[in-house]
């Protein structure tokens, strides 16, 4: 398993559309992907769980990826975070 702390950069935070994007991305991989914020954790493939994390701009999320394609999955997720989910920063 690999773990990385990633920051939400886009203005609107991890809102519905950004979360949907993350779900779609994670569906391309086989690894188990879990996001942790404070005392809450969420399966990155569940849009509802992601929203409940309530991650607004500036929040730091701990991303845990475990599986055969974990390296590649983590790289893609990190890229999406850095791009601010392709939205306004």
């Amino acid at each position, binding site marked *: 398993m690999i773990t990385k702390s990633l920051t939400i950069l886009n203005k*609107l*935070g*991890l*809102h*519905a*559309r950004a*979360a*949907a994007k993350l*779900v*779609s991305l994670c569906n391309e991989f086989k690894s188990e992907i879990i996001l942790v914020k404070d005392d809450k954790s969420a*399966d990155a*493939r*569940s*849009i*509802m*769980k992601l*929203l*409940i994390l*309530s991650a*607004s701009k500036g929040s730091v999320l701990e991303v845990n990826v475990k599986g055969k394609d974990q390296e590649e999955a983590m790289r893609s997720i990190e890229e999406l975070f850095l791009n601010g989910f392709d939205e306004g920063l």
Partner: protein
Amino acid sequence: MSLIINGESISKGICIGQAVHIDKNNIDYAPSYIKKSQIPREIEKFKKSLTNIRKGYEKSRDKVKSNATITKLMETQLHFIEDKSFQASITKKIKNNLYTVNWSIATEYQKIEKSFEGIEDKYIKERLIDIKQMVISLLDFLRENKSGTNLKKVDLRNKIIIIDEITPKEIIDIYYNHASGVITSHGSKSSHSAILSKSLSLPMMVKTAASNSIIKDNDVLIMHSENNEIIINPDKNEIRYFKNLDDKNTSLENNLKKVLKKKSVTSDGKIIKIMSNIELSEEVKFLDNNCDGIGLYRTEYLYMNRSNLPSEEEQVLAYKKVFKRMIKKTVTIRTLDIGSDKEVSENIKAGDIAKNPALGLRGIRYSLVEKNIFKTQIKAMLRAGYNNKLRILIPMITNVNEVFMAKEIINNAKIELKNERKKYTEEYMLGVMVEVPACALQADILSKHIDFMSIGTNDLVQYTLAIDRIDDEVSNLYDPTEPAVLNLIKKVIDSCNKAEIDVSVCGEMAGETFYTRVLLGLGLTSFSMHPQAIPEVKNVILNSNVQKTRKAINKILKCDKRITRENLIRNL
């Protein structure tokens, strides 16, 4: 003994009917179990409901394929329905706890709702509504009662609707189902639902905080608007008394109707134009022929209550319907003004819900982003305006540049119509709606580039005073007679008079007799209001002396104290 509760009346007169509660948030939390042998069937039912709702979402997504923002919005909805962890929780509840699928969904929703309570980000928190919508759709399907709380299919004759809050779409639904009236525990007098119900003469009372818990289904109610009262289960004498009063009101109304036949001239001989505001092309049927045309035709309702956009042809038909009734009279059609408190089909939204919609992408701002929607509408207007007196009104203009950009799209629309060999008018007038203070301050410059102005006082007041007219906490501070507001209105009227272009007021101010003489005093000669207000306002106009009001207005423009100001106005 009957019980009386208070609210704020939108309409006039008396309305008697039977209460019916409409609970929009219809989730049934009553426990229900299955036998072990029924597990596979129950899971099958769940899968079927998911497939059904997904298909519905996909259908609406595909209908609007050309619009990327809408497609994205629907994709997000699809993610909710495909949420694996949601599905797993439901299946687990069916298998392990032997809950029915309905109860599994209800309890899972309860859990999600609880988790959302802790969310601080308002923007994310609002998405619970989407999840709730999905859950309600699922449960409706499972109940094999696909209509759910669809107001469209219920007969509401002699019924008074009791509801938390009502959308314009729902007003239309209950109106077409012959409801007698509507009572909302929240809401506001200047919401679009209220404006709509007013123009449809549908009795409505808002802010009746206790209505939901005190009034029971089938209670007999009397809505007494003059006193802002609702009488619950009145006795025989009360019913008789109010029926009598109702008859008297009707005869009074008939007297006022006589005013309509008179020429609209003040006591000192000034001619005042009185026009109607309409929301639906159907409304024009009820219009008295004595008004001087349509001063504001809001077109939002063409776009509501549906999942696709109205085509050019469909719009041409709707606009022509209005022209047909208004022969030789001016019809002012406002281009689409969505956003803020106007709920348009969620498929026609530019992006996600804005944090502050009143200051967001609405009016011309939206039209300049969604240029094709705007162009289609302009083409329809120009076609319907052929051989008619068309005025095109653009909402939410902030600066001159927006006028230039709008003109460019209008020119493109004309070129397209020419190439398509369609008949259209070249002799239309183009005007802007003055709602943003910036626009009012620039009125003298703007007046050189357009043919008329229409002052939308509701928004102009709210933007000038920074008061959200729907916010119960501050709505009492919403006062159109604040000197700052009146001075802005005066500036606009003066600029238009100087440039010799037409100017009218089409906001609520124009339709309330309290302000009639204030507006006359500011130099206004053209009013546009909801048709129901015309008799009373016209009555005041006929009995006003413009010279006198003009002299008296300066004192009001300088008066800072609200009570004193209001007394001065009453004495105008």
